[in-house]
């Protein structure tokens, strides 16, 4: 498919990919932020999690390692996407924020339901009565996800 090389065609190409990029940048940013907060708050500040938990399995170690590596990569990639959007004058901050909340919330929900409960890779806190922590974790995740999705719907491109 031959794309037009005129100025208008280039602008059209920029606009088309910018629509996707604002959401993608947000989702990656949200993922990175959740991972960073997890490390900063639960490991460094609260000490609920440790560098290594005796409770973690080999699968838990590997999944943590991949997640840790990917979340840093996602953060760096998100900032380059945002820089490209700014350069192309196509940055829509509210849409990025929507993507970030939805992405962060979706990941936290996945972490809370699949990793914590279904696979049992690790827990939020190692205490006997875990229910209150699980409920708060997942309710917060759903709130983030819903707010993010609302923002994304409200900032949707109007089809011409």
């Amino acid at each position, binding site marked *: 498919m031959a794309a037009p090389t005129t100025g208008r065609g280039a602008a059209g190409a920029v606009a088309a990919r910018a629509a996707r990029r604002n959401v993608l940048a947000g989702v990656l940013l949200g993922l990175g932020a959740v991972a960073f907060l997890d490390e900063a708050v639960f490991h460094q500040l609260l000490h609920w999690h440790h560098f290594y938990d005796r409770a973690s399995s080999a699968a838990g170690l590997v999944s943590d390692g991949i997640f840790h590596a990917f979340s840093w990569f996602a953060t*760096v990639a998100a900032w380059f996407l945002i*820089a490209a959007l700014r350069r192309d004058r196509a940055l829509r901050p509210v849409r990025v924020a929507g993507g970030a909340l939805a992405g962060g919330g979706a990941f936290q929900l996945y972490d809370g339901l699949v990793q914590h409960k279904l696979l049992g890779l690790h827990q939020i806190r190692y205490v006997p009565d875990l229910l209150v922590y699980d409920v708060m974790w997942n309710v917060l995740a759903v709130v983030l996800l819903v707010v993010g999705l609302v923002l994304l719907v409200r900032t949707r491109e109007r089809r011409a």
Partner: protein
Amino acid sequence: MSGHGLVGPVPVGLLAAVAAAGYLAAVLGRPWPARRTASWLTGVAGAAVGAPLTVHPDLRVHVAGHLLLGMLAPLLLVRAAPVTLALRTLPVARARGLARALRSGPVRVLTHPVVAGLLDVGGLWVLLRTGLHATGGPAAHALVAVHMLVAGTLFAASLVSPEPAPHRARLGVRAAVLVAAVAAHDVLARTVYADPPPGLPAEQARAGAELLYYGGLPVELALMVLLGAEWFARDRRTVLRPARAASSS
């Protein structure tokens, strides 16, 4: 124990002086970005400080050596574009020979990100999981140090080399390999923490593991940022010439 043999400060210092002098001699009297020269000199210094540390039996010192010799120095040396400098400096016949050698099959295989990544991170796994870093004679120590520097340099070159490379792996492949290598580095650090290499006190292993984990992060982030910068520059060109981008991708 450290500071002797082939990886002692004297032979390493001599090698570093030769490497620094050679680069400076090549740069002298030609237009060449100062940041590349600075990158080379810092890289050589990092390798010279790091190499003698790698033979130390204390895991914390050994890991500090790995961070300098196997991660930071390779990145700085690669970003100094020594091959480009050599190609411009050498007499034409020898420059052609070098260019031919760099296009050869073995070099292409060794500078593929997957191969280089396995050599680099895989070597570290073997070293730390077997306790090899604390054993062996001077020859083994020298081999370990050389492997660290060479594998690290191949890996950095396979990801973010500024040199012209006709067979460079696609950006997506390089990004995926980098994430996998960072993950493997992290998992290794955690297993060292949980299950110290043979003959190491637990306290020392834990401190070494945390240093490995957190100390590697700045270099890993620098690699990610360099990949991002390459994407950013290319992305701008695809906007300016969308037709060409569509036909080449």
